[in-house]
């Protein structure tokens, strides 16, 4: 019994105790305690039900709740304004709520509030119009607002950013689709061209075979119609580059990319070599040591250590 209470009081330390101690006695106690807890849990779980956001509601109302109806009504009359006070003071509107709104469905709930506000406003607008009083704010009325201009700028910025994000994603999607389609079209075109080429070669082969079979006697009459005479021979191909002579082979794609990066890399490379490199001609730094300057006579016979000090 004491063990149970002890365990109950030390919430976390129960774990430690059960690890340290071993033996059946502890297990029995643990079983007893667990039994109690599981019962408690069951009863609690039956009587509790989740409602909105961390707010748990009892399924059966507690029996001890006080409800003093007469007191409530009395107090209400106490504090309320006299009945003949005009509506202008209260500005309260009652809006009929037709159906029950599910609390957990956010969209439906907000929609219900929105419609309530809208209907209330409409009713108020009618009343104000019938009384001939101004209701809506004219556009040229400037006064202090409840949110500062800086804050509204931030709001605007956020809205614009959202819009821009949406647009960008749309554009990206469109570009992706267009690319895919273009690729397909390109593939089609290449296939066409390959087919065309193959066809032409086949035709030429056939013609040659034909000529061979018929013994080369036809001369130039049986030349295949290869489309030379169509008048298209002197048309330039569409892939022309103005200002470049025909034999110019400089504009290849591979060369272009290489050339560009070469220039930049060379400068970089030279710079880096001069700064960090080990080999190559560095600035002529001082190469003499005190011993060597003193050792004028023994210059040639200086030992390897002295020579090593000089840069090679």
């Amino acid at each position: 019994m004491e063990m149970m209470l002890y365990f109950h009081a030390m919430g976390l330390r129960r774990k430690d105790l059960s690890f340290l101690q071993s033996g059946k006695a502890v297990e029995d106690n643990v079983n007893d305690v667990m039994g109690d807890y599981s019962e408690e849990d069951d009863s609690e779980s039956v009587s509790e039900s989740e409602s909105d956001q961390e707010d748990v509601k009892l399924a059966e109302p507690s029996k001890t709740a006080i409800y003093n109806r007469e007191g409530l009504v009395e107090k209400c009359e106490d504090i309320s304004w006299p009945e003949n006070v005009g509506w202008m003071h209260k500005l309260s509107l009652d809006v009929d709520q037709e159906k029950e709104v599910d609390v957990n469905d956010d969209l439906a709930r907000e929609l219900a509030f929105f419609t309530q506000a809208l209907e209330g406003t409409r009713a108020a607008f009618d009343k104000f119009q019938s009384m001939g009083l101004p209701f809506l704010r004219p556009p040229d009325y400037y006064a202090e607002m409840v949110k500062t201009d800086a804050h509204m700028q931030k709001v605007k910025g956020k809205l614009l950013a959202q819009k821009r994000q949406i647009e960008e994603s749309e554009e990206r999607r469109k570009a992706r689709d267009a690319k895919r389609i273009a690729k397909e079209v390109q593939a089609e075109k290449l296939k066409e061209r390959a087919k065309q080429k193959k066809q032409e070669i086949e035709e030429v082969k056939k013609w040659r075979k034909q000529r061979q079979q018929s013994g080369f006697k036809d001369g130039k009459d049986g030349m295949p119609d290869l489309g030379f005479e169509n008048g298209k021979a002197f048309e330039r191909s569409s892939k022309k580059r103005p200002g470049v002579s025909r034999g110019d082979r400089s504009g290849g794609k591979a060369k272009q990319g290489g050339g560009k990066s070469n220039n930049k890399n060379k400068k970089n490379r030279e710079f880096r070599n001069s700064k960090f490199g080990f080999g190559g001609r560095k600035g002529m730094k001082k190469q003499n040591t005190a011993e060597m300057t003193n050792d004028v006579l023994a210059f040639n016979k200086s030992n390897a250590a002295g020579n090593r000090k000089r840069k090679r």
Partner: protein
Amino acid sequence: MGKKRKHSETQTAEPRKKDEGAPERPKRTLMGWKDKDEVSQQTESTPDSPQVFRNKEKVMVTCSRRINYRYRHLMLNMVSLLPHCKKDNKVESRSSKGATLNELIELRGCSSALFFECRKHQDLYMWMARCPNGPSVKFLVNAVHTMEELKLTGNHLKGSRPLLTFSSNFEKDAHWKLLKEMIIQIFGTPKEHRKSKPYHDHVFVFSIVDDHIWFRNYQISVPHNESDKMVRGGLDKMTLVEVGPRFCLNPIKIFAGSFGGPTLYENPFYVSPNQIRALEKRKKAGKYAKKVKAKTRRKMHEQSNPLEPDEFADMWRE
């Protein structure tokens, strides 16, 4: 001296004033300057006296110490929404809270109070009280969204009088009616208040869903084509943009006195957040306990039903 608003009480105030020596200034009413005699005659003769009634409501808004940043911003939002409020310093003590607060309210000359109490840096309780001897309500506040959230894009004039809309369930029960009355008096800006602005460009929504009071604040926006004051045909194109803040109130208790007194109403479905947290912890504890139990059960089972020796145990012996 508390400001008296009730019809009967203004009548009793007047004869007292007549006793003083100097001639009193004619009483200012909504319709202009009138002599007191005229006014008293009018009030006695005609039953309707909207001319005499002036909404002199003043709300004191305070909070407790150790309040969270979110709830502090909510309180500041409320201060900006109610031009007839007075913000006061943080209230310190926990014991004799009611007496301190009542004194403060009297000192500032207010007739109601909104007190935001934050417990354990997590739970926000809001008290709505009527000062001298009126009822007071304690709410638990959930689902707080302040005006600073960038998703709430509306804006309205600071100090313009709001339209208060209530869902029809406020008439269903006595305690809802009382709450409705208190809300009208506290959240409604008085008509000729110094800081109030003329037009009506925002709406408050109070609706009861699932026994909670949900609060929303919308800006009324109508697209203006002409420069008329009355927008013709604009009624159809009227839209509402949410300004904020948003919160949800769970009534806990209604007391007959201000910050104390006999309980008039207790919410039968209310579970305090402490209890909820305790329950969660207990459930978790139960999980571990069940695991331990299952382990011991397994061990017992293994001990009582020993396995047969494995034929292939030494097949791979090296």
